[in-house]
Each structure stands twice: as structure tokens, then as C-alpha cells.
């Protein structure tokens, strides 16, 4: 029975990492959402320089791997005087990376709203921001949600990489157990199942939002 006790013991230890994984996912998703809307709107800006800055941000973060960005945030930023804790470096790298992918979703979503909507807003004498906030975005968000759901799962999966800069989330805890007890199968199966559960919760959450936001639109 001692074996079982040991298993339960390190099982608890591993699951304590789930909290860090969820935390990292939520903060990174929040940063990614913010950056996605900022950069997505900037990509559609009338000013050439704003568009150029947004384009450089998007291409840079999509062009280099999340892995390299994380290591740059953790090992290179301190050299220019910005010291981050492992969690901060993780959120920064994963959030900015997710935001770059998300900005294209925002741009495509806004462009998918028919031109007639913009023209009707102009005819009603709405300002550009009123038109965007009250007319375009509410319709665009419905189009964006499924892609955002996929992005949230990608971000959740990317948090595993943060274990390599010593954030003590699920994968890190499992590696600790492996190096100290030599157990491999149970720790890794346990975290695989936990990741699946988190992903399923995320998917269900996005489905809920999709239903909420598509209320009152055609086809719902």
C-alpha cells in the first residue's frame, strides 16, 4: 500500500501545478485579447505609420517561435535592465505571441461585416468610433469567437513551454516527479488528462459565449 500512498502524494504535488497553468492561461489570454484588439484595429487604421507599426509587431511575433520569445523574455531582457519573474516572462511572451495571431482574427472579423453597415452608420451621422462600437464590433465579435476559442487552446498549450523557464506549472511538476522518483507513466498520463480537462472547459466556455453573442442576429 505504500506505493499507492506515494502515488497519491506526488499526484497531489503535480495537480498543485494545475493552478499555475490555469493562472498563466487566464493572464496570457487577457493580454492576448487586449493586444489582438489594439493591433487588429491598428491594422485597419487610416494612418500609414500606425498600420506599419502594427504589421511589424504581428510579423515579428508570428515569425519567431514562441519558444525563442520566451527564452528572450527570460534571459535577454534582464541584460537590458528589465528583470522579470518566470511567471511574468511567461505571460508576456505567450500573451504577445497570442495577440499577434489574434489581431489577424480581429482584422478579418471586422472586414467580414458588410460594407452596407458602415454606409448606414455614416447615413445616420454616427462618428467613426460610435459606428465601430455600436454597429460593427457587435456583429464582428460573433464571427471572431470560434477562432478565439481555438486561440485560447493554443495559448493553454503554450503554457507548457513556460515550464522550461522554471514556472512551476503542470509540466514542470511532472518533470520534478520524474527526476526525483523515476516514475514516468503515471505523472505524464495525469498531466495529459488534466490538460484535456482544461481544454474541454475552455471549449465549453467559448460555446457558451458564442450562443450569448449570436442572440438576436440572423440565423440564431
Amino acid at each position, binding site marked *: 500500500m505504500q506505493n499507492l500512498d506515494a502515488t497519491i502524494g506526488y499526484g497531489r504535488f503535480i495537480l498543485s501545478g494545475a493552478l499555475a497553468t490555469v493562472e498563466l492561461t487566464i493572464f496570457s489570454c487577457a493580454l492576448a485579447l487586449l493586444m489582438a484588439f489594439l493591433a487588429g484595429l491598428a491594422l485597419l487604421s487610416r494612418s500609414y505609420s500606425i498600420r506599419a507599426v502594427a504589421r511589424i509587431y504581428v*510579423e515579428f511575433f508570428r*515569425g519567431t517561435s514562441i*519558444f525563442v520569445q520566451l527564452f528572450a523574455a527570460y534571459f535577454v531582457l534582464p541584460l537590458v535592465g528589465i528583470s522579470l519573474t518566470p511567471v511574468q516572462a511567461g505571460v508576456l511572451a505567450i500573451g504577445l505571441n497570442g495577440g499577434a495571431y489574434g489581431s489577424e482574427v480581429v482584422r478579418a472579423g471586422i472586414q467580414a461585416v458588410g460594407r452596407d453597415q458602415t454606409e448606414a452608420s455614416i447615413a445616420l451621422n454616427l462618428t467613426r468610433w460610435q459606428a465601430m462600437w455600436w454597429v460593427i464590433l457587435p456583429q464582428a465579435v460573433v464571427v471572431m469567437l470560434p477562432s478565439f476559442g481555438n486561440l485560447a487552446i493554443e495559448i493553454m*498549450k503554450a503554457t507548457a*513551454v513556460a515550464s522550461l523557464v522554471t514556472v512551476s506549472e503542470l509540466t514542470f511538476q511532472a518533470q520534478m516527479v520524474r527526476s526525483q522518483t523515476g516514475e514516468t507513466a503515471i505523472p*505524464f498520463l495525469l498531466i*495529459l488528462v488534466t*490538460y484535456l480537462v482544461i481544454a474541454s472547459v475552455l471549449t465549453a466556455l467559448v460555446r457558451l459565449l458564442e450562443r450569448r453573442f449570436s442572440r438576436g442576429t440572423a440565423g440564431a
Partner: protein
Amino acid sequence: MDWSWDFVAQIMPALTQGLLVTVEITLVSSVVALVLGLLFALAKMSPVGSVRRVAIIATEGIRRTPLLVQLYFLFYVLPDLGILLSPFTAGVIGLGLHYATYTSEVYRAGINNVPVGQWEAARACNLTTRQTWTEIILPQAIPPMIPPLGNYVIAMFKETPILSAITVMDLMGEALAQANFNYRYLEPITLVAAGFLLVSLISAAIIKLLENHLNLRAA
């Protein structure tokens, strides 16, 4: 912060060696992802209900768990079951299998996007199943698949640094080894980032050209 060109010159041979390994991994795992993805897609469209369900559960399970954990699984757990894989083999299988679940969706969407009328017309013209596939369906289904498949190959290229976590000496592995040995992180990691950015931008431009070319032909 002091950038040293001497140090850059010193680590360049190791990084070039790593870049070769990275390219090699990308090519081999692309083949794995493209072939396995097709098998997954066929299984997901199988007329047998149980095959379809198993394929969907397997691909969704792989898609929703991190690649890093799958690599650890292949590299640390399989040896306990008597299957010993080299880091390179484990990396290629892991990366290929992970992206096969993505490519399978591309195949499926490509085939489903061929209008039903084409199938019906093929039947009306009394074509055999084989003729229907090779002469009617695939010529229409394959061109729209090429840009998304190309994007996944680029995505796989960008994921290769993760393989350094299971001791594959790819570009990132070599860079980290040099960084740890000399305790200088600035140059190796910056060079790796620049290298990836360069290759990604060039390959994205090539895919864009390909896409325009295909659109022209379709129009």
C-alpha cells in the same frame, strides 16, 4: 548590454550545424504530418461509425494537449515500455503526429468543399470510384489545400526549438548549449530569433505567391 561580434563568429559554426538539424527535422516531420494527416482524414470520413469516432477522439485528444508533454511522453515513458527512441526519432514522431491532426482538418475541408454536384455528375457519367477520385474530385480538392498545408509546414519549422527540451541538438539546442557554456545569452538567442524570422518571412512570401498563382489559375 554589449554585443560581441567575436563571440558571434565563435558560435557561428555550431549554430549552422544546428540549423541543418532543424531543417532536417522540419522536412522529415512534414512528410510524417502530411501522410498521417491523410490517414486521419480518411478515418474521420470513414463510412464505419466506430472508426470515425475513434479517429475523432484520438485527433482531438492530441490537438488539445501540449506538444511538449507529448514529446516527454515519447521520450521518457516509452522506454519504460521497452521502446527506446533516439531524441531525433522521438522529436520527428511527436512533431509529425501533433501536426497530422491539423493537416487532417485541411484534407477533410478540401474534400468536403468539392460540391455534391460533382460527385453526382461523375456517377451520372458512369465513372468508376477510382476515376471519380483521380479525374474529378482530387484535381479540384488539392489546389485550395496547398496554402494551408504550406502554412502548417512553416508552423512546424517554428515549433522545432521545442525539441531542444528532449536534448535534440537543433538550432535552439546548439544556441542554448553555447549560451550555457559561455554564460552569454544575448547573442545566441538573438541570432536564433533573427534566423527564424528570416526563414518564416521568406517562406510566407513564397506561399503568398503560390496562393496568387493558384487563384489566377482557378479564375
